């Protein structure tokens, strides 16, 4: 495949000016060439499909049949402790015709989408237990409660889902995430972890190929 025509043009123009300001330009050119060779030499094997940012930076956990059969959720935990919560591909909501049509964060005592967390210390964050309700997703047929699964502070909910609930159908594991929770104490997470299963266990259990 040809080199980017724009880059070629730039190099040509520089060479033309060389006659006038030879030394300065050839120095600059040398630096540019060095830079380019550094950039290109570092490109090693290019796999067809590299691991995604989520796969690289997070550890995936799942919980199945949480409080009700078919309520399967994922918990992606980052190295810094934060947990991204969402619907696992085998959640029964996806089985309904037409998929998820609506999401409502006004459950329990407050509207989760309204809370604003401030500062580094995350003041005003709602404290959640693992079975605290997060939101309600509705399909044409029924509605289902989604719960936190993790004990900690609720840092944010994905408000984009309110206007675009179809994100849940198309990419529940990325743009369709539901919330981010920060476990308050390492001890809380360790205890939580006991009820979760790994990606391998999840695949085996659900006999799903992901």
């Amino acid at each position: 495949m040809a080199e980017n025509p724009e880059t070629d043009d730039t190099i040509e123009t520089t060479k033309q000016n060389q006659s006038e300001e030879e030394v300065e330009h050839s120095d600059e050119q040398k630096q540019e060439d060095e830079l380019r060779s550094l950039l290109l030499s570092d490109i090693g094997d290019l796999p067809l499909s590299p691991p995604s940012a989520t796969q690289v930076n997070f550890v995936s956990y799942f919980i199945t049949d949480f409080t009700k059969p078919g309520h399967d959720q994922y918990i992606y935990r980052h190295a810094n402790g934060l947990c991204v919560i969402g619907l696992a591909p085998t959640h029964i909501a996806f089985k309904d015709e037409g998929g998820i049509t609506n999401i409502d964060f006004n459950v329990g005592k407050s509207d989760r989408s309204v809370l604003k967390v401030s500062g580094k210390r995350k003041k005003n964050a709602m404290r959640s237990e693992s079975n605290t309700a997060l939101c309600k997703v509705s399909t044409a047929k029924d509605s289902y409660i989604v719960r936190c699964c993790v004990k900690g502070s609720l840092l944010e909910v994905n408000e984009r889902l309110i206007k675009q609930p179809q994100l849940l159908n198309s990419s529940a594991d990325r743009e369709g995430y539901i919330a981010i929770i920060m476990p308050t104490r390492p001890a809380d997470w360790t205890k939580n972890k006991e009820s979760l299963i790994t990606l391998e266990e999840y695949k085996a259990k659900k006999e799903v190929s992901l």
Partner: protein
Amino acid sequence: MSDESKPAPGGLLNGLETQKTRRVNEAARSLHPSAVKDLLSLGVCERCILRLVTVTATFDSDLATVSSSTLRGWLGSGVEEAASPEPSICIVCLGVLQFVFSDAKQTLVKSDHVAWITDLVKQQGHEFDSFVLEVSLPSTISENERAVLLYLKGKYSDEAWLQSEKVSVKDALKVLVLDPLRASLGAKSDSSSFHIRLTYSQASDEAQGLSETKHERKKRKTDEENGSNCMSENPFKKVSEPCILSVHCNKMPIFFGGRYFKYSRNVSQSRWIIDDERMGEASVEEIIGGSILPACLGDSYKFHAAGREDIDVRMLGSGRPFLIEVQNSRKCPSQQSLTEIEEKINNSEKKLVGVKDLKFIGSECWAMMREGEAEKQKQYAALVWISRPLEEEDCNSVSSMKELKILQKTPIRVLHRRSQLERERTIHWMKVEKIKGNAHYFLLHLCTQAGTYIKEFVHGDLGRTTPSMGSILGCRAEIIQLDVTDVKMGDS
């Protein structure tokens, strides 16, 4: 009566010296005689007496030329203690103005005080041509002085010399010691970045003579308020031990600046240790600072950089500006040595870090740092993968986007330690460079506003950065690796 206008014994003195001693002589003889006798019998030293009883508030270096014993002679004889061979330690200044002190081991120092101090300064190894003298004294000295003045007020109330402001022990010591020290060290004593501190501290816990307990101080204060000026019950106790003098030298921090390059994807910018384990193979801070510190013979160093990059991001192009601050350096390396250090780092076997333009920086250092900060633009090259093949149209649409505004929510990877905010940033320009033989990968060159999270701009951070590379191209995008190619400074 001896002719006291004759010069002091001990050798020839030039005309100026004679003038000085004559002035001191006159000052000594003008003092209130019975006050002087009183203080001498209490155990106050000659220089303190001159300080406290004189009318004029000057206590100049003339006094340095006159020895204690000579001064004693001029203040008047007829006191029994004048005969004693070893004068007792002054109850006010605790021997400070008598140049009587102990070393750290609490042994009395017999040698000349200026020579002793000079030795200790030289031992610390600093190169200097000027110094600033600092003195630290125990607080009991001012308490002692207050008690003695109170006593004098009680006995000689309303005398003129009582009303005038007294030169403090600290100022008196500085005046006495500065000139000889200047001569002995061969240095000036104007404003300087090199400080010599003389710290006097009391040897034991015993109440040194006149120092009050808290209770006594309260009682004295209320007594004074009530109008009674009676002295505390304690007589003036003798001082048994002199103070311990320690000499400490400190040079203000010096700065070196330059630009660094980071060629490795396993080297952090600053020392990074979690749970006793080092993250990454090395750090830029330690490689550069660790080379400069020994050349300065300093105590420690601090590393400052104009911005930072992740451990897995290389710093190429024109390099990133940095400063090394060295505490208490003993010598300043020459430009030649700095060049050698720079070459050594650049030619090292592992080639993890590079340095350019390493030089000594003066007070303009912070201005230099600010140049590389918030308002400045940064340039990057990112290796991007997309889920569908790249098309010609993509290159055009991307290059045509100028000053693209993006909204970034705090990335999840830093959300645990930064505020939850939505930040607006600008991508000034972008350029797609295709890679031979692979339609799913390309090199993205971009120039952005400072503070932009590039990785999140490419992969979208679960939709929390909009627009992202993925949303612009309408597919999934991942960032494989990132390099910083330019940190723009000023107009360069």
